[in-house]
C-alpha cells in the first residue's frame, strides 16, 4: 500500500446492498475529498476488513445480506487494528432497541433514512472529528 502509516487516511469503507444509497454516500464523500471504498454487502465489507485496516471511517447499512452492519461492527471491535475506526450506521429502522444494540456493539453515529445531503454531510463531519480524536 502506498499510503504511509503516519499519514491520515482519506479512505472510507461504505457497505450497503442498496446501490442508490451507496452511490449517494460515495458521491458526498468524494465531494468532501475522501475516497470511498465500496462493498455490496456485509460479507464483502468483512472480507475487505480482514485484509485492510487503512480507513478513516466506515459507513454501514444496518440491514444487509449475509452479514448485518452490526455483525461487521462486532468483528471490528474485536480486532486491535480496526477498533479505533469510527462507524456510522445508516438505517430506516425505527426500533429503539435495534439502535441501542448497535451502539452497544460499537456504532459511533446513526443516520436515519430518508436523509438529505446536508444531514449526511453533517453526520460525516461528526464522524471524521471522532476519527481525528481517535488518531
Amino acid at each position, binding site marked *: 500500500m502506498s499510503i504511509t502509516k503516519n499519514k491520515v487516511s482519506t479512505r472510507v469503507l461504505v457497505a450497503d446492498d*442498496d446501490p*442508490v444509497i451507496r452511490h449517494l454516500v460515495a458521491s458526498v464523500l468524494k465531494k468532501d475529498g475522501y475516497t470511498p471504498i465500496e462493498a455490496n454487502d456485509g460479507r464483502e465489507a468483512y472480507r475487505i476488513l480482514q485484509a485492510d485496516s487503512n480507513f478513516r471511517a466506515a459507513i454501514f447499512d444496518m440491514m444487509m445480506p449475509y452479514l448485518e452492519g452490526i455483525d461487521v461492527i462486532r468483528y471490528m471491535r474485536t480486532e486491535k487494528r480496526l477498533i479505533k475506526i469510527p462507524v456510522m450506521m445508516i438505517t*430506516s429502522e425505527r426500533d429503539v432497541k435495534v439502535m441501542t444494540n448497535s451502539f452497544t456493539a460499537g456504532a459511533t453515529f446513526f443516520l436515519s433514512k430518508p436523509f438529505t445531503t446536508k444531514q449526511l454531510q453533517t453526520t460525516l463531519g461528526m464522524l471524521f472529528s471522532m476519527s481525528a480524536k481517535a488518531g
Partner: protein
Amino acid sequence: MSGKSMTDSVNDAVDMTVLSGLEGAQVDGEPDLIVELIDLYLEDTPRRLAAMSALLEQRDALSLRRAAHGLKGSSATLGAARTARLCEAVEEMSQDGSLAAVATLLDGLEQEFAHVRQSFLNERRKRTNKELAQTCLPCATQLLTGT
C-alpha cells in the same frame, strides 16, 4: 383511469424537491448525480419487486419484510414517498403474518412503481436535454424548435 388522473399520479409519484435536494452531493466534472441515482433506482427496483413476489409465493415473511425494508429506504431518499409508505405497510403486514394483505399491497406497489418510473424518466429526459443543450448549440436549437 382517465388521462388526467394518470398524469396526476405520475406527477405526485416523486417529490422533485426531495430529489433535487440531493444535488448538493454532485461532484464537479462528474456525470449528473441525479440521473445516475435515477438509473440505479430504475434498474434495481424491478429486481426487488420480483424478489418480493417470489418471497410471497414462498410465504417467506421474514425475507419479505427485509426486501420491503430495503426498497423503502431508497424510495424515501429519492422522494418516492408513496412507494416508501407502501413498502412500510408490506413490512408491517409481513411481520404480522398477514400475507393476503401483502399480496394486495404488492399489486399496489407495482402500479405505483409504474408512476414513479414515468416520473423519473420525465425528469431524466429534462436533465439530459439540458446537459446536451449546454454542450451543443445545434442540439439546443433542435430541442427548442423540435426539429
